[in-house]
């Protein structure tokens, strides 16, 4: 009669094994935290420019200009930012992707010296000394990188320094997909 009940443990176990097998996907990082902002519009902000850098200031209104762009939080005191910097330089030189920087919790003079020393890959730079915009973005530290689509919505967030693997496997394909999406919409 209740014979099927004896199969119940096996069925439950099979479902669990399926789940675990999915969970072992090597690209899945159990410690990664997704951004709360994904697919949401950013709130309004306007940051002052970094005097002497040659890059104009950054405000919310600059982000919905119909272009896909990258926003990078950095600071001169941040060692991983230094490791990431050459990859941003390459990205700026070799692609047409606008890269905007937000100098986070840093003395403007120190930021400027750092950029003059290492090069300036940023199209626009906003100075966020008091972490006001950092709070809006919900960043947990620097460096952090966001991809913003043509309408000014956050589509991707990366914690920690960018490296060629992330740029080639995640950033570049995503930027291309977002550009196609924007073309189709228009």
């Amino acid at each position: 009669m209740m014979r099927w009940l004896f199969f119940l443990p096996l069925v439950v176990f099979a479902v669990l094994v399926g789940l675990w097998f999915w969970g072992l996907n090597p690209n899945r990082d159990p410690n990664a935290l997704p951004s709360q902002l994904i697919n949401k519009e950013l709130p309004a902000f306007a940051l002052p420019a970094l005097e002497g850098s040659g890059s104009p200031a950054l405000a919310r209104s600059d982000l919905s200009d119909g272009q896909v762009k990258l926003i990078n939080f950095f600071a001169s005191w941040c060692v991983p930012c230094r490791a990431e910097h050459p990859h941003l330089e390459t990205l700026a030189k070799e692609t047409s992707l606008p890269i905007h920087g937000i100098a986070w919790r840093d003395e403007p003079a120190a930021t400027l010296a750092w950029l003059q020393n290492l090069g300036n890959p940023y199209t626009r730079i906003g100075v966020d000394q008091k972490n006001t915009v950092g709070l809006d973005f919900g960043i947990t530290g620097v460096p952090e990188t966001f991809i913003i689509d043509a309408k000014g919505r956050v589509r991707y967030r990366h914690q920690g320094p960018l490296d060629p693997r992330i740029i080639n496997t995640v950033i570049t394909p995503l930027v291309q997909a977002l550009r196609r999406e924007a073309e189709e919409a228009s």
Partner: protein
Amino acid sequence: MFTEIGHFSLILATFIAGLQVVFGFWGAQRRHAGLMRATDQAALVSFALVLLSFAALMHAYIVSDFSLLAVWQNSHQDKPLIYRIAGTWGNHEGSLLLWTLILTLFSACLVLAGGGLPSSLKARVLGVQGSIALGFLSFMVLTSNPFLRQAVLPIDGKGLNPLLQDIGLAMHPPMLYLGYVGFSMAFSFAVAALIEGRVDPAWGRWVRPWTLAAWIFLTAGITLGSWWAYYELGWGGWWFWDPVENVSFMPWLSGTALLHCAIVVEKRDAMKVWTILFAVLTFALSLVGTFIVRSGLLTSVHAFAVDPERGRYILILLALSIGGSLGLFAVRAPIFKPGGLFAPISREGALLINNILLAIAAAIVFYGTLWPLVVEALSGQKITVGGPFYDRTFVPLMAPLVVVMGIGPFMTWKRADAAAVAQRLGLVLGITALIVVAVIFLRRGGAWLPYVGIALAVWLIVAAAVEWWERNGPRNGRWADLWKRIARTPNAAHGMSLAHAGLGVAIIGMVGSTSWSVETITAMAPGETAGLGQHCLRFNGVDVVPGPNYTAQRGDITVLKNCQDDWLALAPEKRSYPVRAMGTTEAAINSRWNGDIYVALGDEQDGKRVVRAYFRAYVPWIWLGGILMVAGGLLSLSDRRLRLGIPRRVSASKPAGPAVEPPNQGLLTGKEAQSS
């Protein structure tokens, strides 16, 4: 050289384990005596080889042979000897080798002690044990070989994670493993029974000592781990519902259920399907524990060696062993017909309720541990399940469990006299009420919920005491007989009373520390005082003290009794280990009967020092409860002596003494030898 011998014996052990599987199953099927004897030999040889291999690895750690990759990654010359030894199992590869060593040890014990077992059952049990060993040995040889050499010889090692350099932690994994792996015996017996299609009281009697031994080790391991977290991590907590803690707790819950339903099989020939299922599930949960800690599947404070490749191998092992046995269960378990019938109000009935509640409790912990993964798979969102979830689900479930635990021992087997039981429980209830009212009066009230918890714990302790007294207390005022009566009661009954009361004691500690603790976190300059409950602390300053492989900042803190007189001197430390560039917190703890004064040193802040001070009410009761449970288990295990047929002076003249059942004598002697 020694290393190569160890490496070679590891590979050889893998092949021998394969032979053990083939000989065991084939021999039992054919009833071929020679093959079954060969299975015994294979199990012994396999244990000897793994032991040799483990000794070789330990030797490499002791002499700091950094040509071994694993030694270089986890050890350092400046480490004290005890931690160099403990370092053998303080990492992924070494801990797997320890796991396998214990597994083969259990098989060897079965060979040496299982002379009374039917030979085909023993061969099948060894066959199942051998296949688990084969799985883990091949896993080690193929993906996590502890004997891998490196070409370039480094000057010194990278050191052991300083958090793990602690005597509590040196002891904790071996204990847990003895528990986890011990449940493999119950599992192997269950699978062998499914193949043979036979579960009878004798089977229950063979399974119980192994299960009990595993349960004792697991209880001790969990208590040690909790104690370690309490004084080493410096957070002042003893349980965090962290995934890694949960995976040790789940087999404990289902192992406890197994322990109790195996009694029903043994005494009443009933609840066979339950017992088989719990035997399989308990070991499955132990394997899941190993799997989760190593695969990086869930994030945790103590997941080490995160590597999906290894995780996949363990998952395949898990799918084969557990999936296979559950499949066998689905096909074969329906043939077991219940033997003894019983009324709902009976010892069996109480044990059944206890089992259902424990199963639900284990399911809740399982759900809470894996739910984040399910949510992520379905919606991509990340969530964590923490204390509040368990407070609302697990904790209320403990209330009926504890109530039934108090009632159960008063019931007789088969059919209990409800009126008589109610009358005796009335006494228990009366004493409990008196004690709880006294406690409320002494503590001068406060929130009512903690008192419910205390009342449950007191109920359990009083019920155990009353039941023990009814069984052992003097009859007709003949106090002279008291000792004789105690000696005549089986040790298993004493063990039960002690273990049940131990849980009550632990619950008092858990409720008290959760509800009545006070804490103060302040930045203090030297000479300043701060309040902590009714007492005060004075911060006198910080010294820098060198240690063997660290430097410590040692705080000097005086506790003032009722904020007036100097009372206790405490010296919490903050250690920094240069090799790993890591620090640890060594809290200073002064234990008293009603709680711990617990002080941890924080960072420096504007010339002041952050001091975290807690009064953790009744925490020592938790450890005492754990010790009592372990003692109860050991006492119960020693009961087996009664059934061995070893000549006893008392029973020689009295044939009406405890039944003498020769078939299991060998098994049980060995069990005792191994547990002592």
